[in-house]
């Protein structure tokens, strides 16, 4: 079903455990991608010819599939972007332009990916606003009390990951949203990791924004989604100007199309966006497959090994997504990743685009094994055995 997963590297069957960075793509996605390029490549919306009509139909079908997948009220609340990073930048720019001013405050957390940190820093720089940072406890949980204490009448938005790409702990988004809403503060959820393993219902979460990437959930690269409540999209000014986002253009002034088109300037990723349909079907089919068995096995193996320190140790197994970042005493993460690579195992090592979090734990980097629902318990076992061999080579 996933051609890349059948590949061999250095003569060994590939065990792909870098899913938090990007997932592999199923056959159906690859076919759709190809099909869009071969069968109906045309620019969408404007032209009346057959290809254009077909392409528009496929593009809008993807919007409906996304709406359905995350339980949004209306298709117009789904904006296509190039990925989570672009989605968050869109909000930081556009929401920031309209609602954030001198002395206002933005709240993020210590566990954020750089993509949910740097756009807000840029906004703070432009608007002379202040960035406040919520803390993470020693076991990798968000300190909700401390977060609540940061909220003030100047807080304009809280932006938080549903699941940290390092710690793998699922944050209590509903609770965070409820705390923030009680003070009239909107919440953006970075769902880059969460979308893969959690069932997401944006109406139930009641978040104001939800951002995720297609490529982490089996769709083509360069696809991303910004969900936003209609009231925000209506009030936010356009992010980029260009084709398709306008209603009427003249030199005296231009009026803009309604959301979501207001935020989709220029030619869209026509061939890739329709792959969201088979990708999300695959996601529904695979969801949760071996997650809990893998989680339990990995947690047992990693926490019982005195050489290993796991970051993000869940209080309950159900709080953990199968993302495991850890340090090995006396063995450098880069060495371990190089050796594991030659055993056929793809893992990530380094700072995982979360330097502030590394600093918080006093680390220069970690080794991360991140599983997708297509990974098996056997692969987890092979990983643990190989890790032990790699450690023994090094110490």
């Amino acid at each position, binding site marked *: 079903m996933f051609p890349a997963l059948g590949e061999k590297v*250095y003569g060994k069957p590939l065990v792909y455990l870098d899913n938090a960075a990007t997932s592999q793509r199923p056959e159906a996605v690859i076919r759709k991608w190809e099909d869009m390029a071969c069968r109906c490549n045309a620019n969408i919306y404007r032209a009346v010819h057959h290809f254009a009509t077909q392409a528009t139909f496929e593009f809008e079908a993807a919007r409906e599939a996304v709406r359905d997948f995350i339980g949004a009220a209306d298709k117009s609340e789904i904006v296509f972007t190039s990925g989570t990073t672009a989605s968050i930048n869109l909000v930081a720019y556009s929401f920031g332009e309209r609602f954030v001013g001198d002395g206002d405050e933005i709240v993020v957390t210590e566990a954020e990916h750089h993509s949910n940190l740097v756009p807000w820093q840029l906004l703070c720089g432009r608007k002379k606003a202040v960035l406040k940072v919520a803390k993470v406890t020693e076991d990798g949980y968000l300190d909700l009390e401390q977060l609540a204490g940061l909220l003030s009448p100047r807080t304009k938005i809280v932006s938080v990951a549903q699941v940290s790409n390092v710690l793998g702990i699922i944050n209590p988004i509903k609770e965070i949203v409820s705390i923030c809403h009680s003070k009239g503060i909107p919440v953006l959820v970075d769902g880059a990791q969460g979308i893969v393993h959690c069932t997401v219902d944006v109406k139930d979460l009641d978040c104001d924004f939800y951002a995720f990437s297609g490529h982490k959930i089996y769709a083509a690269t360069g696809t991303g989604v910004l969900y936003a409540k209609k009231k925000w999209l209506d009030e936010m000014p356009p992010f980029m100007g260009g084709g398709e986002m306008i209603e009427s253009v003249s030199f005296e002034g231009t009026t803009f199309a309604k959301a979501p088109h207001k935020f989709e300037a220029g030619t869209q990723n026509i061939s890739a966006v329709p792959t969201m349909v088979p990708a999300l079907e695959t996601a529904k089919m695979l969801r949760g497959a071996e997650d809990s068995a893998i989680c339990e096995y990995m947690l047992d193996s990693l926490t019982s090994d005195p050489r290993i320190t796991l970051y993000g140790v869940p209080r309950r197994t159900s709080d953990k997504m199968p993302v495991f970042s850890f340090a090995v005493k006396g063995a450098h*993460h*880069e*060495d371990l*990743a*190089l*050796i594991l690579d030659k055993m056929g195992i793809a893992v990530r090592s380094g700072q995982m685009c979360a330097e502030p979090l590394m600093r918080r734990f006093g680390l*220069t*980097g970690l080794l991360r094994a991140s599983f997708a629902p297509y990974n098996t318990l056997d692969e987890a076992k092979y990983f643990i055995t190989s890790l032990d061999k790699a450690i023994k080579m*090094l110490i």
Partner: protein
Amino acid sequence: MTLQEAKEKVIEEFSMYDEWLDKYEYLIGLGKELEAYPEEERTEEHLIKGCQSRVWLCSEKRDGKLFFKADSDAIITKGIISLLVGVYSGRTPEEIAEDDFSFLDNIGLKENLSPTRAGGLVSMIETMKKTAQEAI
């Protein structure tokens, strides 16, 4: 031993190992044997930052030749450093500045030198070349 001979010796030693893990075992051994790095030179100025391993590099010029000392917190990188220091330390700045360091490709370490942010090794080579250019 000329620079060319030193490189050929490394290539020959590496050709004894077919298996990747054996190559790594060899590099780990070299890394462990690397001459201790002078603690007073373990400064921010001499630190080459990478996303992954950190590399320290310092040099001095004696009798018209450049001598390098280096270290890393990752042992495989340290092994490669040991190779580089062994081959290039004690050469003239001209020799180093003109070299393309491509012999590392011949021993299959190219991916350790890929232009990702992975290691400090690429930056280390650049720093060695720059040091040599400045010393001419």
